[in-house]
């Protein structure tokens, strides 16, 4: 297995799922209000290529959805990539009992139809958000506005970890140059020795 330090360095980079865009808590059974009911599940449909305004939807899946899933482990999230570039890029949000007060406004006047989204259960209501031609940050703003998700407050540990990683990245260019010089010097020396032994042509 790989060196532990290397492994931890990579793992810590991946573990940015704790903070960032999309790190927020949906209203659950304990925190739900009349205005913002519990979110039970999400479904995202988008087309695999970016043409036709599908880029933001895919980025939302790759960047924001893991954070949402981390902070809301009990909310089921499904993603359906299609090959239909002209098809919809839609996020369907399922609420328990009733829609949130802001959801209808964000869904727009002519709601898009997502044939891949599962039908809401008897005690669920679903609202759609059209994601076409939006950046993933904008998509997240709309999701947050319609669900009333509360941003996760980074702990001291998270901040220390982020600072540590930032420091390493800041040091990296210098380190890279230093290592490059060492490797080049070693190569030069080997080349010189090979030339002296007559194993390679002199340049």
């Amino acid at each position, binding site marked *: 297995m790989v*060196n532990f330090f290397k492994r931890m360095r990579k793992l810590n980079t991946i573990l940015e799922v704790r903070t960032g865009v999309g790190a927020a808590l949906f209203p659950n059974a304990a925190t739900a209000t009349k205005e913002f009911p519990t979110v039970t599940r999400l479904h995202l449909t988008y087309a695999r290529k970016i043409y036709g305004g599908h880029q933001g939807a895919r980025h939302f899946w790759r960047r924001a959805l*893991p954070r949402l899933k*981390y902070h809301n*482990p*009990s909310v089921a999230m499904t993603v359906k990539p299609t090959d239909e570039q002209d098809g919809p890029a839609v996020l369907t949000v399922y609420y328990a009992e009733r829609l949130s007060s802001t959801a209808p406004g964000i869904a727009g006047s002519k709601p898009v139809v997502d044939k891949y989204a599962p039908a809401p259960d008897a005690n669920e209501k679903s609202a759609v958000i059209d994601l076409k031609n939006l950046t993933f940050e904008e998509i997240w703003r709309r999701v947050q506005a319609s669900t009333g998700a509360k941003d996760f407050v980074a702990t001291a540990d998270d901040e220390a970890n982020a600072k540590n990683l930032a420091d390493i990245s800041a040091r990296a260019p210098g380190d890279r140059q230093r290592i490059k010089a060492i490797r080049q*010097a070693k190569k030069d020396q080997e080349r010189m020795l090979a030339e002296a032994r007559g194993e390679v042509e002199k340049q």
Partner: protein
Amino acid sequence: MSSFGAGMPTVARGILSSARLPLREKSIVPTLAGLQQVRGLKNQKKDKGKKGKSEAKPSRRAPLEFRQGNLKDLTQYTLCDAMRFIRAIEVGRERTVSKYEVAIRMRTRRDGPVIRNMIRFPHAVQTESRICVICPPGSKQAKDALAAGAVLVGEEEVFAAVKAGKIEFDRCLAHPDSLPALNKAALGRILGPRGLMPSVKTGTVVEDVASRVEMLRGGTIYRERDATIRLPIGQLGFSPEQLRDNLRTTIESIKKDAAGLNDRINKEIYEVVLSSTHGPGFSLNGEFKTDDSPETSALTGL
């Protein structure tokens, strides 16, 4: 090594770097003599002798044991926390594709026997494993094998299908009665590289075909490679309890295998890493959950 002896003549540096000895100006005899010494292994040895006995002869051999990292350098996670991260990173992946995987690092010697066995999980990981049985068609074994869930049973029709390039199975068993026919059909070229060729040595030529088929359907083969055993351990929808049961079975089975080896062979488990098809690896600390972990019901399903 590069700055090492930078001020010295080229040839002397050559000796230095090839013999990997610390710099001692005195020991490098005149440059001319050095020139003659460049390639001779014998001369290098003599050269070493001159340097005195206090210097240990550098060992060219790899260490006897696999090198282990220090576990203190590692952040370890409880099972529930690791599952929470993995489920977050696997979000939106297809249910049938993503699996939990485990890598078990052993503390063991580089030589000697390796662990290789098969286990049956309390909660099946593979939803489907297609098994082919080569035995005389119409015999009792053929009927039993079919009843046990083999997808392809027979002799000639199997050989024909394989020769035509249609290999629609993941495992292949054979009955001893069919062994001559199998050898005559010369399928080793086709099945061998895929690891499907039945042979007595791998335990895929058996009398009781049916029971073996049953075992294989729920079983997973694992094997130690470079001191690590890797195997899929659960579907992404498993609850933490289900995953814990499977993990426990795996570790017990591996411990049993390690104990069953020669008395002088000492193998023990050093580290257990949980990962998934697309996810990173999380070293486990052996605990089930912490107070901050979410409810186990929240970590179940997709």
